[in-house]
């Protein structure tokens, strides 16, 4: 059954579908009670976010988006091979993925209406709301709304530390779903089932609408699940903004197919603010849908749906 909802006028008008095919496939949790307490506080108090920079990634107290955001000249070219998008491949593998913000980033297994399968990425902004690209929820040439999307927070190879769930409760905007695809409106959301609330454990991204000058003066971070690495491991890169337009952000962060929908964020005082939703690859610069005022309004509305 399709349901339509209208948030505001114009091409950012929200459109939605809910096929009532949600399914939950919980896996054993591996989060400690200490972690649960920190994340719960995170949802209630922004001050708690400041503590998250002291969490441990792997064997070291090291968060690449924090470190390389501060010291970009020291960025590693971790795996200089032929998998090049723009210049050398600077992507860094994130493992384990159980620290914030990595655990709030989700691998997506998309089943289109015509049965074809795709890999994408999403990220949590509330306990049950996952933000992604519009073309991950509504595929124009594959039958429209996806029939189902499996969401796997913090997927790390065979490990699903926060379980997974499938949903067909999807959101996008008329600027994306009506007529031909328009990159300016390429964003959407997945509302997870009531009994699957991973954002409570993982923590969530905050949202920001920066002006042009702020964006151009910012090091952007991007992490997702590229298909050339199998689509089951998370890879990160960061670089400064290359250019902006009212609805797009362009950068030379290395990405690959499967990273559509990834968060594009900046780090400030230990807090992660998403400013874009990664959608496109291009030799002249990869790009994201910019979180401008109207996009922010829709994301906040969708955030409330999954509270």
């Amino acid at each position, binding site marked *: 059954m399709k349901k339509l909802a209208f948030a505001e006028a114009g091409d950012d008008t929200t459109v939605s579908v809910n096929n009532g095919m949600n399914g939950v496939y919980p896996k054993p949790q591996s989060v400690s009670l200490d972690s649960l307490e920190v994340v719960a506080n995170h949802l209630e108090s922004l001050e708690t976010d400041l503590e998250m920079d002291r969490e441990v990634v792997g064997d070291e107290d090291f968060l690449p988006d924090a470190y390389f955001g501060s010291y970009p000249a020291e960025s590693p070219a971790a795996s200089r091979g032929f998998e090049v998008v723009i210049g050398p491949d600077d992507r860094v593998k994130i493992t384990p993925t159980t620290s914030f913000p990595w655990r709030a980033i989700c691998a997506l297994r998309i089943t289109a209406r015509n049965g074809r*399968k*795709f*890999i994408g990425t999403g990220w949590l902004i509330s306990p049950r709301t996952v933000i992604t*690209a519009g*073309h991950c929820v509504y595929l*124009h040439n594959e039958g429209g709304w996806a029939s189902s999307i499996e969401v796997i927070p913090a997927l790390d190879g065979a490990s699903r530390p926060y379980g997974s769930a499938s949903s067909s409760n999807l959101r996008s905007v008329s600027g994306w779903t009506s007529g031909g695809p328009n990159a300016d409106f390429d964003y959407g959301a997945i509302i997870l089932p009531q009994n699957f609330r991973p954002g409570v454990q993982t923590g969530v991204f905050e949202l920001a609408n920066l002006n042009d000058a702020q964006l151009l003066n910012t090091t952007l971070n991007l992490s997702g699940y590229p298909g050339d690495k199998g689509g089951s491991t998370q890879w990160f890169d960061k670089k400064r903004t290359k250019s902006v337009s009212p609805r797009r952000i362009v950068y030379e962060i290395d990405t690959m197919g*499967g990273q*559509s929908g990834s968060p594009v964020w900046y780090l400030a005082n230990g807090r992660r603010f998403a400013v874009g939703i990664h959608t496109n690859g291009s030799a002249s610069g990869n*790009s994201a849908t910019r979180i401008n005022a109207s996009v922010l309004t829709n994301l906040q509305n969708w955030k409330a749906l999954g509270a």
Partner: protein
Amino acid sequence: MKNIKGIITSDGKPASDVVVVIVEGSQSFLDIASVTDQAGEFSFSLQPGHYKARAFKDDLIKETSFEVSDEKSVTENNKAVIHLDF
């Protein structure tokens, strides 16, 4: 955008669950990965232009360059524009 269809085979037989990505393009392209079905088929939506696709099966990698024409649909007559055999 044109809907581009491809087929992956292994020793001439359809290969399922192979991940395919676009790695280069003369036009901007959606950064989504396609996964082959039981018939070995996958698809992408692309603007007319020149592209390079790469397929990953186990530890093997195959790639091919192709052109998406503005003149006609490359999926006409159910013909795949991309065919890679492992």
